[in-house]
């Protein structure tokens, strides 16, 4: 039970809002100065140019215009455009860039999500080339997209990514394309020329893009399968930017429905091609390309929604505190004057909920970003290895990985053993094995990416509405400080583009049952119980119990049938697997939030600035963890109960299971003891925390 911790850690309240020093520790970039600089750079653009654009009403038009174009200039001048590129391509950050891009998106969407989308969309266009392009394609297009250096006279290129097609074609289901490619000319010994037809729908950056990476299928027996191709604005044919999308959100990004009908050399097929028996065989089909693109680009989108929740805290506190000032009913120094709406418990507690959800989402999103930073080099190494070993084709790969999975499971088990007890030689051998490491990381990435995209944006949108409501009528006006309504409605797009919630749930319903993932999940539960003993105030106990309940329910669902005798766990049975995926997301976000807190507690004392206020921060974030853990355990418990009981008519059919489930559910429920007391303390901190005099961006 979790009620003793407040005495252990003193009663110090958080005195200021968490600053950069605190975030750098929690999100693990305290040692990465280049990343910290990009954060400052993005922030200066967001709270300068971007905020002014929004305040001046630039969101009130659908069309892309010169005023909005200031954004692109800003990205270029402040170095943000080249963050995506490697040094040899003209960038300035070496190595994987998932975390830095996520942080950039965080800073931009702190003010406006559309600005963040606009910056991410160019990278999205480049991503197919970055992930799967040939070395020449990479160098060419990445370098073209770097802003010219002083003294250089060249055009900077910007791209758009075109997958989605006009109805009834590609949307959620990306398998069947109507975009086509045919061989237009193919002279003996020469590079074939392709005729590419692509109509896009809702394509970001299309108002100014100089090139498009487009998904198309073969319409010619001389081309096998699908591919992504690069189309340039000066290619012969039609490069029609199309009708502007009349969207109501993210208006600082450009979106339209392009019509593209162009003749391009076959060398524009991303990843290149081989010719066999007179047939062009693209080296990568469009499905492979988009899979490796989206699993990275979805993470910054997730982070965007969480940034907005956290950005709402300060304006809401200010509104609440000043609500009654100036009237005759409250004089300076009176509680009504000083605290305003914060005299009311509900106003404070709902803000605590918003804050906790923002923290959990950010924790999960940044954890996913860091994971991809670790995963990227391993994946490239794996690709190289497979080529060296001549293992091509998905069947051969699957067979090989089936073998490696055993070692991966062994590695996971060894890793969680105390160092003194483990077989060190074997552990080191497996730690150095690229394929083992690839599988371990992949099993996590395949869950964390869809989980953060789904939960941060979906639940984030709901919580953003809560934030709006805390500002009353002001919340739904255009001049509400912090642009809360804009952030709320924008969140719906974040939940939709790059794969709406259904897509994420579909992916999770498969990846979350991966044995390697589940093996790690079980060990995470053990870790959380250990955390709960040492740090009972974090809600780790409630969370661990809920995770255990989830795991039990999975096994139940996989083995059981409904009242009609139909299997419960089936990928097409969305009524089961989709809510079950949701339950997992709550748990994962909460877990990561606790891990970030522990990091702050451990590393905080090393930084004198953080150390001076550490006790207050640790208490507050710990209370937020607890609030969120209780909520997550509640959500997971509710979902699991509905799935276990909801498909049965006669409980006698699951008699023994019922007893087990009820015991586990009860354990999870009672571990919420004290949770509301921690919420009270978090609320007290929110009523006392010092905030600046005014928002640091225009309204």
């Amino acid at each position, binding site marked *: 039970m979790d009620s003793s911790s407040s005495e252990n850690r003193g009663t110090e309240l958080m005195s200021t809002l968490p600053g950069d020093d605190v975030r750098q520790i929690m999100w693990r970039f305290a040692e990465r100065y280049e990343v910290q*600089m990009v954060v400052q*750079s993005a922030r200066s653009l967001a709270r300068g140019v971007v905020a002014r654009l929004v*305040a001046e009403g630039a969101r009130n038009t659908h069309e892309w215009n010169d005023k909005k174009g200031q954004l692109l200039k800003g990205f270029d001048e402040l*170095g943000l455009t080249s*963050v995506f590129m490697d040094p040899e391509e003209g960038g300035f950050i070496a190595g994987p860039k998932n975390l830095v891009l996520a942080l950039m998106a965080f800073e931009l969407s702190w003010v406006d999500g559309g600005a963040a989308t606009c910056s991410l969309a160019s990278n999205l266009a480049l991503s197919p080339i970055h992930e799967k392009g040939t070395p020449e394609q990479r160098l060419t297009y990445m370098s073209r997209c770097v802003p010219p250096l002083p003294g250089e006279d060249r055009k900077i290129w910007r791209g758009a990514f075109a997958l989605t097609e006009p109805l009834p074609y590609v949307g959620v289901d990306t398998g069947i394309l109507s975009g086509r490619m045919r061989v237009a000319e193919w002279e003996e010994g020469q590079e074939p020329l392709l005729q590419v037809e692509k109509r896009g729908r809702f394509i970001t950056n299309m108002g100014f893009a100089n090139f498009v990476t487009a998904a198309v299928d073969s319409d010619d027996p001389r081309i096998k399968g699908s591919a992504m191709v690069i189309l340039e604005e000066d290619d012969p044919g039609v490069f029609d930017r199309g009708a502007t999308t009349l969207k109501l959100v993210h208006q600082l990004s450009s979106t339209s429905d392009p019509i593209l009908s162009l003749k391009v050399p076959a060398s524009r097929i991303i990843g290149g091609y081989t010719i066999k028996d007179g047939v062009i065989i693209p080296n990568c089909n469009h499905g492979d390309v988009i899979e490796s693109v989206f699993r990275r680009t979805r993470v910054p989108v997730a982070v965007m929604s969480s940034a907005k929740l956290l950005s709402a805290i300060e304006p809401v506190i200010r509104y609440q505190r000043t609500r009654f000032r100036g009237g005759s009913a409250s004089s300076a120094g009176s509680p009504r004057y000083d605290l305003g709406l914060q005299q009311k418990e509900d106003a404070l507690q709902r803000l605590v909920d918003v804050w906790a959800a923002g923290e959990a989402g950010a924790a999960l999103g940044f954890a996913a970003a860091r994971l991809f930073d670790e995963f990227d080099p391993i994946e490239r190494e794996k690709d190289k290895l497979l080529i060296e070993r001549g293992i091509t084709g998905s069947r051969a790969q699957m067979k090989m990985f089936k073998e490696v999975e055993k070692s991966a499971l062994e590695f996971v088990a060894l890793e969680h053993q105390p160092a003194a007890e483990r077989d060190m030689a074997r552990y080191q051998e497996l730690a150095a094995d690229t394929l083992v490491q690839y599988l371990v990381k992949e099993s996590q990435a395949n869950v964390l990416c869809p989980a953060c995209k789904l939960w941060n944006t979906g639940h984030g949108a709901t919580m953003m509405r809560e934030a709006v409501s805390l500002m009353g009528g002001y919340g739904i006006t255009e001049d509400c400080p912090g642009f809360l309504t804009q952030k709320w409605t924008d969140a719906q797009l974040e939940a939709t583009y790059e794969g709406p919630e259904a897509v994420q749930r579909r992916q999770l319903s498969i990846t979350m049952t991966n044995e390697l993932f589940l093996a790690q999940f079980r060990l995470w539960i053990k870790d959380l119980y250990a955390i709960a003993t040492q740090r009972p105030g974090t809600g780790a106990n409630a969370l661990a119990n809920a995770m255990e309940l989830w795991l039990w329910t999975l096994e139940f669902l996989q083995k059981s049938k409904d009242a009609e005798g139909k299997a419960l766990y089936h990928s097409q049975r969305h009524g089961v697997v989709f809510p079950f995926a949701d339950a997992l997301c709550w748990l994962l976000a909460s877990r990561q939030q606790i891990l970030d807190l522990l990091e702050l507690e451990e590393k905080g004392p090393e*930084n004198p600035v953080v150390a001076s206020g550490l006790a207050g921060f640790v208490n507050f974030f710990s209370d937020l963890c607890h609030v969120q853990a209780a909520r997550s355990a509640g959500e997971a418990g509710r979902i699991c109960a509905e799935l276990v009981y909801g498909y049965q008519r006669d409980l006698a059919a699951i008699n023994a299971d019922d007893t087990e489930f009820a015991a586990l559910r009860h354990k999870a429920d009672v571990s919420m003891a004290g949770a509301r007391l921690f919420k009270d303390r978090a609320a007290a901190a929110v009523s006392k925390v*010092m905030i*600046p*005099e*005014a928002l640091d961006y225009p309204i």
Partner: protein
Amino acid sequence: MNGGFHIVVCGSIVPDPLQTLAPIEGPTGPALKNELMLPAVLDPWAGHALYEAANLAKNVPDSKVWLVSLGPKAKLQQLMMSIAQKVSFELVVLDGPAGGFTDPCEVAAALAGGINGIAGLDRSRLLLFGGCSSASRDAGVTMQMVAEQLGIGDQFLGVDELTIQADGSMKLLERIEGGQYQVSTCTGAPAMLAWATGNLPEPPNNPQIGMMNMRTVMPALQKAQPAPVGAAGVSYLGVELPKQRRETRIVKDLSVDEVAREIVEWLKG
């Protein structure tokens, strides 16, 4: 003079002006509530001096800029993540307090000591830059004291413009009363310029410049010397906020004339 200028800019942090500044009685005398935790910015007057220095160094070949900062090391490091992106300089760090309750004489001594320790600094080419004022300390005498300790007699206060003339001499515009300037000419370095606002906008961030500066910034932070300046012998009778309460109002859609009219009315009471 051979070669360009060696420009040393003295500048440190102040709390972000948007923050609530509440004086409290700390263990070692008066302090600001939560000062260490509040976000900090480069003291605006020192900022103008730094941007002017960088601009001058860009236009006079073979010049170099140092930024000498007396402040808490961890806070300075955080500040560098944005300032080091704006212009090129080499950092010298003196690890000590940067609050508003230090004695300018002690501060000046520490800064002069720091400057004396800069390897390769050519005193004959030295332009000592700083702010004529500060957003937290505002003693208005610090730069003069530093200059005196370094033996620099040519001192200019409230500088808004510096022009290097064809013969290498410097033409300076100093603010005096009534919105007027005093125009002076100085044959050249060494000299001390305490800047008012200058004429340059804040340079945008550029992480590429930042990455270059970082090569020297981080080692400078690591080898920062402790500079425990305070206000020895000074006892504060009391510290309080100005009587007029700060009221931040944000107005939109108001013409400049209307804003001016409102302010005049307010001033008239």
